[in-house]
């Protein structure tokens, strides 16, 4: 039984194996690491040989660990050294560790790994063989030497050239078998002395780093050792040159002498002559040369020159060389190069370079004419700039950068056939930096000024940062509903909200629905001072402290017109600066943001830091305190520009953010206003054209011209032409006041109605003491006015920026609300 079992198991196993073997697919065979090698001890590569691949595609991966570390790494580079290799670059190579390397072959079925290989870098170092082996024989004193030269093996990483190789040379005669090996040391050349003449030798060289193995032998080089007993080789004539077109020299190169001392002779003949001459002078120009002096030099004739080498065994003649002296002129470089720095007319320095022709050249007789060329480059530069100068011996150079160093060189050539001379020795030029004091001063001033400006600006920013910001970036008014407190909204008490709306007596009527004017209640403590002359009227003003008692702008007596009245007394020149200051002020204050709070008296403080910008009609008076404004933000935005002191017109702009986000007033309107105001001032007796700008939603709000709040009386209306309301200058008003001519004219009108949104219909009215209008009656009258809208004697188109200009009959002021209501 047992045996049966065993045998059956065996059979099954065999079957399995055979089936596996039959199908031909199995896990891969074991790879084998063939060798590992390092070229220079900084990198190394390993190659492996794959085992059988088991019939399937096999992936090979190499894993290694160092010394006794546990961590296993994978090969960093499978490509660099070819297939089935792994290349370890500098970063992965550590010469003092032992690497344990295994290669794993993996295919679909399974994997197999090789035996681990222990690799110690220092032991696997083997450089490449040396290259560029060159051999040369030299014979001197009948002894022939062999000069061998080579180069170290090239490395991919050229920077690491600090390797010191030891070399070994071996040679043997061609036919022989045995090599003679010579240890050379670290040099890359060697002189072999014991040579057999007449034999052909083979030479090889190899190298080794201080540890590791010898490289392979380099490729073979063959050399023939000259036989001592042979005629010399043919010499060759190198060149012939004439430095000054009067003499010339020829040089030749001897071939190898056949082991014996060789004599060279130069022979020449001239064109057209048969006679052969020998070189007149072998010495002057050095060894292997021949110097022809003036006597022996003829021009425009061709020389036929040959050199003969003779030794005991025989002689050999070089090839003939034909020379016409005119064409072989190569002068010496120019001399006496001098530099001079000059200043041109506009103070720019330029360089004058002068030189002289070479001393031997006879330029003075015109025999030899030279042309010059110079080249220069900045010291650090790469390329030379070449300038052809011609026959002159000086050059002016303008295009040089101050402060830089330049290198300059000159060479010359005969003007006809001939060749360029050598470059003269380098000449260094240093261009002085032209640092004019004036320039420096200018820069210093500029620097100081700019720093000052920066300081001032930063100081201003710090001090008035907020206001500046508001000036530059006027705050966007949030929507405001008059009478509604956002707090109320937040708290969500609708009751209060409604009460806020209702309690104020906010006239829900159409009267005030479209309040276009937000009147400003101005409270000024110094009432008396406000209006000297029309003090009575001004008194109204203080009394006008109409707190926001729910009347709404319609009813509030504290209207700008009143305020305008105040300014009535002070005719003064409008100062735009003030107005601007006002704006500035406003911007800073963000007083626009104030909301109409139910049952609150809104007091707008236009605080001007500067009295100048106390934008207040009241402020027109000197020493005015700042006016206190109360204003209700009305439906529409009105902007009241507060003019500053000494401004005839103080216009107050009250921003109404109620329903829209109107921007502030608009300088344009101010300016407009201002201009008008100015006009008004100028033409005292003139009629003033006033333009009321109706404030509509999102429009610019009408400018309540404080000056006109002075109740500029409507003087006349031109109906036919441009319907404009002509308002009398307030000064005139004064006069007229005094004149007190009743019924003089319908100089005061009250607004009866407003039509077309920009036409203010004023009711002409008998003149009324404008000085003694009290608010209350004014109110009444205004209301009367309202009621009597129908009546219109004159209709005006008012585009006044200031509401003040509207006069209402019987009242010193125009109740903006009165006509506001009719603005539909």
């Amino acid at each position, binding site marked *: 039984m047992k045996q049966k079992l065993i045998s059956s198991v065996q059979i099954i196993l065999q079957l399995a194996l055979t089936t596996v073997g039959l199908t031909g697919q199995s896990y891969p065979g074991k790879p084998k690491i063939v060798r590992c090698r390092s070229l220079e001890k900084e990198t190394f590569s390993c190659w492996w040989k794959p085992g059988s691949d088991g019939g399937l595609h096999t992936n090979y991966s190499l894993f290694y660990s160092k010394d006794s570390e546990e961590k296993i790494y994978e090969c960093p580079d499978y490509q660099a050294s070819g297939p089935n290799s792994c290349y370890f670059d500098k970063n992965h190579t550590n010469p003092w560790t032992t690497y344990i390397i295994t290669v794993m072959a993996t295919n679909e079925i399974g994997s197999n790994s090789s035996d681990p290989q222990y690799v110690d870098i220092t032991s696997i170092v083997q450089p490449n063989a040396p290259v560029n082996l060159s051999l040369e024989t030299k014979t001197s004193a009948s002894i022939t030497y062999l000069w061998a030269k080579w180069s170290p093996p090239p490395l991919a990483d050229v920077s690491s050239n600090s390797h010191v190789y030891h070399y070994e040379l071996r040679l043997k005669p061609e036919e022989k078998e045995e090599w003679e090996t010579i240890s050379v040391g670290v040099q890359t050349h060697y002189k072999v002395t014991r040579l057999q003449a007449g034999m052909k030798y083979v030479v090889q060289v190899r190298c080794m780093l201080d540890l590791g193995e010898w490289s392979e032998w380099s490729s073979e080089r063959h050399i023939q050792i000259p036989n001592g007993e042979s005629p010399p080789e043919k010499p060759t004539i190198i060149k012939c040159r004439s430095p000054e077109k009067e003499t010339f020299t020829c040089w030749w190169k001897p071939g190898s002498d056949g082991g014996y001392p060789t004599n060279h002779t130069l022979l020449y003949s001239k064109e057209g002559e048969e006679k052969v001459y020998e070189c007149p002078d072998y010495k002057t120009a050095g060894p292997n040369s021949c110097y022809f002096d*003036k006597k022996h030099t003829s021009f425009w004739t061709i020389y036929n020159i040959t050199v003969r080498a003779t030794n005991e065994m025989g002689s050999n003649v070089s090839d003939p060389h034909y020379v016409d002296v005119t064409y072989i002129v190569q002068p010496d470089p120019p001399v006496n190069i001098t530099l001079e720095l000059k200043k041109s007319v506009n103070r720019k320095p330029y360089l004058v370079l002068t030189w002289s022709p070479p001393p031997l050249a006879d330029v*003075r*007789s015109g*025999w030899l004419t030279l042309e010059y060329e110079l080249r220069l480059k900045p010291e650090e530069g790469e390329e030379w700039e070449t300038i052809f100068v011609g026959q002159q011996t000086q050059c002016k150079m303008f295009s040089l950068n101050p402060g830089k160093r330049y290198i300059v060189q000159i060479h010359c050539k005969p003007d006809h056939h001939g060749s360029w001379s050598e470059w003269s020795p380098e000449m260094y030029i240093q261009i002085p930096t032209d640092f004019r004091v004036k320039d420096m001063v200018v820069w210093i001033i500029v620097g100081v000024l700019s720093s000052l400006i920066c300081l001032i600006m930063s100081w201003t920013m710090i001090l008035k940062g907020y206001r500046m910001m508001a000036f530059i970036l006027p705050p966007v008014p949030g929507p405001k509903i008059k009478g509604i407190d956002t707090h109320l909204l937040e708290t969500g008490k609708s009751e209060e909200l409604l009460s806020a709306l209702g309690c104020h007596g906010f006239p829900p009527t159409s009267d005030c629905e479209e309040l276009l004017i937000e009147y400003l209640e101005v409270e000024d403590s110094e009432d008396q001072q406000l209006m000297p002359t029309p003090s009575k009227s001004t008194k109204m003003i203080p009394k006008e402290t109409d707190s926001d008692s729910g009347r709404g702008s319609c009813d509030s007596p504290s209207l700008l017109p009143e305020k305008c009245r105040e300014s009535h007394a002070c005719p003064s020149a409008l100062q735009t600066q003030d107005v601007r200051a006002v704006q500035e002020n406003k911007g800073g204050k963000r007083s626009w943001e104030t909301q109409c709070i139910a049952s609150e008296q809104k007091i707008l403080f236009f605080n001007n830091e500067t009295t100048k910008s106390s934008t207040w009609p009241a402020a027109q008076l000197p020493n005015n305190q700042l006016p206190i404004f109360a204003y209700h933000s009305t439906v529409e935005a009105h902007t009241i520009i507060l003019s500053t002191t000494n401004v005839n017109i103080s216009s107050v702009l009250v921003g109404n953010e109620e329903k829209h986000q109107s921007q502030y007033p608009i300088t344009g309107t101010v300016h407009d206003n201002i201009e008008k105001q100015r006009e008004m001032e100028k033409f005292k007796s003139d009629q003033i054209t006033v333009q009321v700008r109706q404030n509509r939603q999102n429009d610019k709000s009408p400018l309540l011209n404080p000056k006109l709040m002075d109740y500029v009386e409507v003087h006349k209306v031109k109906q036919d032409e441009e319907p404009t309301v002509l308002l009398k200058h307030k000064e005139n008003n004064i006069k007229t006041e005094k004149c007190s001519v009743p019924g003089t004219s319908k100089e005061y009108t009250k607004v009866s109605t407003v039509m077309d949104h920009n036409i203010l219909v004023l009711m002409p009215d008998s003149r009324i003491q404008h000085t003694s209008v009290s608010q209350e009656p004014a109110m009444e009258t205004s209301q009367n006015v309202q009621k009597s809208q129908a009546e219109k004697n004159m209709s005006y188109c008012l585009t006044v920026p200031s509401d003040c200009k509207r006069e209402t009959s019987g009242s010193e002021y125009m109740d903006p609300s009165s006509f506001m209501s009719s603005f539909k």
Partner: protein
Amino acid sequence: CHTSGMLTPNGKEYAQKIPREELTHLILRLLQAWKEPLSNFNHHIEHHQELPDDSLSKAKQISNMVHELKTGVEKVTEKMQSMGIISNSLNGMASSEGTGLSISNEANMMSDSDFIHCFRRDSNKVQSYLKILKCRIMPENSC
């Protein structure tokens, strides 16, 4: 070269030694000697199809230049003679005409390359002689 027969100084010293009149005369003779051969040459190469047009125009240009140069030198010579810088002794250009004819006959027999070679050399000669002459007569002029 057909002008080889002319005895010309072949060195600086010789050129400086011979009298100015002779030098001037020599220059003129040289220029004269080339007048005919150049025009013949131009005719000759016009029929060469393979030469580029540049060469033909250049050759014409050169012969014009030689002619103008000769005229110029003649004028200068006259001026010099009138100013007394050189003597009037050698005014016999007519005699050189005769030799010129025979010379030009020789020139016709030269090959083109020899022709050009000879012309190059002789033009160099003329240039050198003129320069030396210039510096001898007016030494202050960039000499």
